């Protein structure tokens, strides 16, 4: 199974892509996907999306199939999702 992961802001710069296809196993949850991505993209990426305790950062905007989600989405199953957009906060003026 595959899902499209999109990035904006600093995450897009660090990942070096605005969008990528990521394979996942049946039954995988958001947390599994993020762990896989952190491994793929390295420590700076991981630091932007996760706390030291392994939770998604509260300032990371998570958009699932175009819908903004509030709160901890780490346990959400991926099976019915097609696109995840991860947005790091920006304040350039």
């Amino acid at each position, binding site marked *: 199974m595959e899902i499209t992961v999109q990035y*904006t*802001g*600093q995450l*897009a*710069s660090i990942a070096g892509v*605005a969008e990528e296809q990521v394979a996942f196993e049946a039954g995988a949850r958001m947390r599994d996907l993020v762990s896989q991505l952190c491994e793929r993209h390295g420590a700076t990426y991981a*630091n*932007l999306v996760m706390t030291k305790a392994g939770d998604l*950062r*509260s*300032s990371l*905007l998570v*958009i699932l199939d*175009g*819908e*903004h*989600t*509030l709160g901890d989405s780490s346990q959400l199953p991926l099976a019915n999702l097609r696109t995840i*957009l991860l*947005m*790091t*906060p*920006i*304040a*350039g*003026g």
Partner: protein
Amino acid sequence: MNSLTEEDHAIYEWQLDVPGFGEKGQELLRNSTALVSRAGGLGGPLCFSLAAAGIGKLIIAHAGDLRLDDLNRQILMRSDGVGEPRVESISKTLRAFNPRIEVVTVPENISEENAKRLVSEADIAFGAAPLFEERLLLNRECVAKGIPLIDCAMFNLEGHVIPILPGKSACLACLYPEIPPHWKRRFPVIGAVSALAANIGAIEGIKALTGLGESQYGKMIHFDTARMNFQKIVLQRNPACTICSSSQ
């Protein structure tokens, strides 16, 4: 409410023709006060567009002296003002451009000391500061006063605008309950990208003040100029938001 003069008609006649705007919209704009937090690469063109449209009064908060490395994007500034307070360049440029509007410059950034007072003088606020501390302070005071906040931001080749109507749409603290720890004061910027975010913010502000079109409260208008993608994302209010959850 001050009505339009003959000179106003002469200057603004092309925008008086905009359906849904007209004399009523121009009068509403003329009688409105906007607070702009920082007039750099983003806030500068935003002020320019509000001034061009004929806003009644601009209150512009921006500290510090002009530097050479501001000049790639801060279009209200003047090369002959390097080393001098930015607000001096801002005043000179805006007054030369449209002397019929009132421009009040404050040589300070938004802070705990001035945020409440400055917001109390405005009908609408625009957030264009490079630090979340300032943006969240402005958000808090706009929610407390119940006035619209148009938060505009950019990074690299992308940007977004979040129009906020306190009590009705997600506020900035709903999205960022804490200061994002990784944001850095220095960010990659080309002025045209800042100006694009600024002008989306300016038209949202004009709409909020005049009732023109459909305000995009509760949405993030996001653009990526590298790929020329534009999208709108519906934002959820946080029922546990410490800033706006008690606002209805």
